[in-house]
């Protein structure tokens, strides 16, 4: 690359000092020489420009192409003149698949399979068993031959699957292209049922060409807390509506065989809830290939990844990257150094006379210009989302609310307030759409909020302690060796949840019940035990050490009772008991004045905020979590008053005065 002339760069920078439009970004472009150029679209441009839409193209709808984006892009010459450009897609020849007849091969005890005859020697690089009916998931080996006498092992070991129930399918095996006529696929029937011989298979001609390598963008991600048997990751994309085709995952496990789900928050009825935008199966054998999950184009810039770990250790991701759909080139006949301006997504797509040249453009043979530097900001980003702060709520009489909690002060703007267990317990909760959970500002007006359901659970540690049961059915009796534990809940009235119980025992089998001990009532003469879930819990060497049980049914209970039937064994050691609650948070625009969360009113109906109309913008903006004071009326809140802020500062000031006095005394002695 030849460097950009200094004078040209300075001229462009000087030009940037007086931006003529509402564009938010400017980037100089280094052209190799005046004349026709092509310029690649990169992640920085996608992040700032008008978004593309991913559509399926091609005979089989196999190609994911990004279309309709960058309507705001304008290219400027050094003298400030607008330079026409075109978005030109690289010519992609459709992959050509040819059918092949199939004959079964002799099956053995552990293998079966078939041979496919292409009719003549052809250059092929893939085979597709799309006619093979599911469900199946089988390992296989693939050989190829030109003369049916000399065979080449082109796929030593692979996995093909089609599980319609889980909507996962991969019936295509690719291999290094070569001149072959016969393909022999051998199934490994050791651990799976035989599958029928397909009526035909399809082979992809190698000479047909392929789409260009997709743009891959590394993504930021973080592990989120999760229940046993699952791994959750939160992924941040560079921008909303990025034209993604798939996620690529890099994990440190040698073998991977797990299902994965990708979700993003979308508004459904009263709450934003995780919607699946991608689902698949992560499969990797010793070939150490990259794991890949096809996904729909996300509409937000935050997505979540859920991996079902099964009986394995949690999947440890090392890197996550986004594979983008096919992108066009920017074609421009550059008079010299250029600058790209973009970011005002309200601009319509420009129309240039240059369009007449499109048929004659051979984009692959063009000289390639380069982005000279990272984008510089011309204008501040619009407040996300626009005009949301103006959507003030109506005044609210908070006297009927039993709970009021100060929300920590901070910079005004869009924030998210996670709802803790106290809110879940003392509000009407998700069953009534959090109708009584409101945010009010310092003037008593409501602050519109949007409820967002998070995919990961809200995890609370619980203590388990041996208990003497009061329920008659749990009383000790001859021949019954049961351990009864009391598990205090942080609050009564929590929504349906799950409890996770861990143990350090390695090999055991126990019958476990969980429920509530209830006092005598009209139907029971004595205290009784209401079991809500029971299960046989067994573990062999290497199996999972946690048991997950549903908890529901007693809104007034403050503790659970766990009953373990020990049989003739010693008591099972229990540890690490956790309560998994559904996780919610409120998105709202933090006002200038102090705000607070109020809840605990049974008589109020659900709110109807105009904010819901802006849900896509509200959900699509990255936010920081806000915090709030402990709940008033609880032990925690009472304890918070153990020392008032003025007293605290006075104590510290007094300590400083005393210390300074000691210091002066010491120095005087010296």
């Amino acid at each position, binding site marked *: 690359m030849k460097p950009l002339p*200094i004078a040209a760069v300075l001229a462009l920078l000087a030009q940037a000092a007086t931006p003529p439009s509402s564009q938010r970004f400017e980037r100089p472009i280094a052209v190799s020489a005046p004349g026709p150029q092509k310029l690649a679209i990169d992640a920085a441009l996608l992040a700032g420009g008008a978004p593309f839409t991913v559509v399926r193209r091609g005979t089989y709808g196999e190609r994911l192409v990004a279309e309709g984006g960058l309507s705001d892009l304008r290219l400027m010459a050094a003298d400030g003149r607008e330079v026409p450009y075109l978005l030109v897609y690289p010519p992609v020849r459709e992959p050509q698949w040819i059918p092949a007849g199939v004959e079964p091969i002799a099956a053995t005890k552990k293998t079966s399979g078939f041979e496919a005859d292409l009719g003549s020697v052809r250059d092929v690089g893939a085979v597709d068993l799309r006619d093979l009916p599911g469900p199946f998931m089988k390992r296989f080996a693939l050989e190829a031959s030109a003369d049916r006498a000399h065979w080449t092992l082109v796929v030593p070991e692979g996995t093909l699957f089609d599980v319609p129930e889980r909507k996962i399918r991969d019936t295509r095996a690719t291999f290094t292209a070569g001149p072959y006529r016969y393909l022999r696929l051998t199934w490994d029937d050791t651990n799976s049922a035989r599958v029928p011989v397909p009526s035909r298979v399809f082979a992809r001609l190698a000479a047909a060409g392929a789409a260009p390598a997709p743009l891959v963008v590394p993504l930021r991600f973080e592990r989120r807390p999760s229940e046993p048997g699952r791994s959750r990751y939160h992924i941040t994309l560079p921008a909303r509506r990025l034209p993604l085709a798939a996620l690529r995952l890099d994990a440190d496990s040698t073998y991977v065989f797990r299902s994965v789900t990708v979700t993003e928050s979308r508004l459904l009825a009263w709450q934003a809830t995780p919607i699946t935008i991608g689902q698949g199966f992560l499969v990797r054998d010793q070939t150490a290939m990259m794991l890949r999950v096809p996904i729909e184009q996300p509409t937000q810039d935050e997505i979540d990844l859920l991996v079902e770990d099964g009986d394995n250790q949690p999947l440890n991701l090392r890197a996550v990257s986004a594979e983008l759909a096919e992108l066009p080139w920017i074609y421009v006949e550059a008079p010299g150094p250029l600058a790209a301006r973009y970011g005002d997504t309200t601009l319509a797509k420009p129309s240039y006379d240059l369009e007449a040249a499109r048929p004659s453009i051979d984009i692959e043979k063009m000289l390639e210009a380069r982005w000279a530097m990272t984008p510089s900001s011309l204008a501040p980003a619009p407040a996300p989302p626009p005009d949301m702060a103006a959507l003030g709520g109506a005044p609210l009489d908070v006297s009927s609310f039993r709970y009021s909690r100060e929300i*920590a002060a901070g910079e005004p703007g869009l924030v998210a307030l996670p709802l803790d267990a106290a809110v879940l317990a003392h509000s009407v909760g998700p069953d009534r759409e959090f109708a009584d959970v409101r945010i009010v500002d310092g003037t008593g007006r409501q602050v519109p909020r949007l409820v967002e359901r998070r995919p990961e659970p809200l995890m609370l540690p619980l203590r388990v302690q041996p208990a003497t049961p009061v329920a008659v059915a749990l009383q000790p009796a001859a021949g019954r060796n049961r351990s009864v534990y009391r598990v205090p809940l942080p609050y009564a009235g929590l929504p349906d949840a799950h409890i996770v119980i861990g143990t350090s025992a390695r090999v055991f089998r126990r019958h476990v019940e969980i429920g509530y001990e209830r006092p005598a009532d009209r139907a029971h003469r004595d205290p009784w035990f209401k079991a809500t879930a029971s299960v046989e819990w067994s573990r062999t060497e290497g199996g999972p050490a946690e048991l997950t049980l549903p908890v529901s049914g007693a809104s007034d209970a403050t503790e659970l009772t766990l009953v373990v039937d020990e049989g003739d064994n010693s008591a099972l050691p229990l540890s690490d008991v956790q309560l998994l609650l559904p996780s919610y948070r409120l998105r709202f625009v933090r006002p200038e004045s102090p705000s607070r969360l109020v809840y605990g009113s049974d008589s109020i109906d659900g709110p109807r905020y105009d904010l819901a109309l802006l849900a896509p913008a509200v959900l699509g903006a990255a936010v*920081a979590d806000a*915090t709030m004071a402990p709940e008033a009326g609880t032990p925690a809140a009472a304890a918070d008053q*153990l020392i008032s802020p003025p007293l605290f500062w006075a104590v510290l000031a007094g300590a400083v005065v005393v210390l300074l006095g000691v210091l002066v005394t010491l120095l005087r002695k010296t």
Partner: protein
Amino acid sequence: MAALLWTGYSPAARIPVVVFTALYVLVFTFAPVIAGWFGRPFDDLGDRTAYAGPLLLFAFAVLARIDPALASPWMPFSVLLGLLAVIAARASVTGKGPLYFVAAFFAIAAQASWSATHLDLSRLRTAVEMYAAFGALVLAAPILARRAGRPFEPAAGTGVVVLVSLPLLLFLASGPIAPEALWALALLLAILNAAMFIESAAVGLPPISFLGSILSWAILAAWWVRASGSVGVLASLSVLTGMTLVTLGGYVWAHARQPNVPDGVPARFADGLFLGLCGHLCLFLLAANPAWSIPPWPVFATLAVLTLATSVASLAVRAGALHVAATGAASMVVLAWTLAAAGRSWGLVALLAAAGAAAFALGWIAIARRRDLTGAAAAGAVVALFVAEATAMGAAGLPAAPFTAIVIAHAVNLSVVLAIAAWRSWRPLAVAAAAAGWAVALHWQFFLMPGPPWTQLLVLSFAIYAVFVAYPFVLGRRIQDDRYPYIATIMASAMFFFAARAALDAGGMLRMIGLVPVVESAVLAVLLRQLLRLERPGARDLGRLALVAGAALAFVTVAIPVQLSHQWITIGWALEGAALAWLFRRIPHRGLFYSAIALLTTVFVRLALNPEIFLYEPRGSLRIFNWYLYTYVLCAAAMLLAGWWLSSTDDAVAGTVRASRLLPAAAGVLLFIVLNIEIADYFATGPEITFRFGAGVSQDLTYTIGWLLFGMALLAVGIWQRVHAARVAAVMLIAVTTFKCFLYDLRSLGGLYRVGSFVGLAIALALVSLALQKFVLARPEKTA
């Protein structure tokens, strides 16, 4: 009594059991006295029956466990308290300390039994009053005994009693009532710690107080885990501050009671002061949690108090290491907060907090000087400044940290570190500061780029570079025998080069990168000039001179390939090689010599053995006066000059051949090559030079004439300079040329051309023979 309690106890018998137990205890405790009243005193064995009294106190522990009515414990526990007081008095009077120790143990066991069985929120007040009453007795009894001149023996026993009492507080700290028990816990910790310090100081056993402090912090940690999330940050910080102040105050007090313990003893009270740093550890964990430390003012205020207290304590006991640890810990707390908790809005606060910690450490130097702890105070300041550097790096990633403030923070931190290094003569510190500068630049380059504008990396690295460049200039003659400032400057120069390269690359301005090493080289040259002026000839540190000079030239060497291309690289290296040879005359350091030889060897290889040379640039339209001419001639001239300059030095390469002989030879080879290139270029027709012999008579004859003239010129030089090798080479070249002429050229000539050629050749050979006869063979060779 055990059988009664085990088999037949009924709550209805509570009062009789308590009364009779008390009576038995008193009877057994005073049995020797009673025996004396009857005139039949006990012997030794009988005397020991007195221990049955305190042993019987186990009954209260059992009662607390089995009797639900003891949820209200005052009746039996008042009796127990009274019995303990009586036994303590008896133990003091008789000198039988174990009487008191056994009784105290069972009193503690009774409280533990009651707490485990009955303690809940409704009985918190009762528990606190009970603990306080027994704690006060445990505190007072040994003091009174000592005042009465009858201390308990063995002396360590009283401290052990306090230690055993401490775990009782776990009932408050780790149970469900922990949040509400905050102040009670604080009060009891204070009482028991006071007792512990008094007892350990009284008997001169610091390990007792060490164990007690560790236990107290463990109790506080248990409370923290259980309840701090409930009571909020202010209350938690208050307790933390109190515990730290009690710990520090206790040890200072105890140290003051034993001020003259020599340094070599295994344990001193002053050593226990380091346990006060547990407060900083708690703050570190707390600061890393944004839920606790945003906004950070309570945490920072507490940190300030703890650090001030620790430093005052260090001053009081003259423990400099304690102050170093405290300032380092304070800075680490700020760093942890910056990295883990400070979000989008707190970048500037992070910088100011780090600056505050460093400023405190610096200000303390003036105070510590009064107590002869200047070195420790300076070390503390250095530690704080280095951590402040890390904090500034962390804050650089936060949106609210102004770039100007970040630059100022780095520049000031490093400047002060360098100032301390010079002041205290801590020489390697300057290098450590340079390493910190490297870390700053690398962090920005690899963790923050390409987010911020590329100019920021340039400005930041330049600011750091400027600090280190100014350092030796500012110090001047004060660092005459110190190499480290110059090493630091060179390290910073390298840092700036790489950072500037990354910045310019990000900004698309890479074509200007050559300017950076050239400017750096010029700066180092100025530094070298200052060195030469500072050091007297003959007393110079040649290694330091060579280091600076070599670095200056190294930057030029770097500048050449990054900025120039093709033949200009070669020319640049040739000129630099010659310059190094000149410098070697002034600074006879072998490193300079071998650098010069290496560069000139590279130049020779690039020009003589590199076929790519013909592809560097297309042939120009101007013949002979083209880039080949100036490239080869300039390089050859550089080699000749280098050889001339080296001839007056010790220039043996690895002790064998002198470089002043090799370099002119290499120059001659280059000149001969360029002669042939020019001839080929003259007759070439395409875009590239091609050597074509036999393509034409004129070209072949031109080669012959050129070689002959070159040989004669070489012979003349050999004769003039009296260089035997040059003369031999010249004669050989002339001979080869002659053979070429006779055997190859003349066959393609006819007529007068052939005659003329013969004549010309004859004249040339005659001149050669004349010259040899007159200047070589006529006199013996004197010099080779």
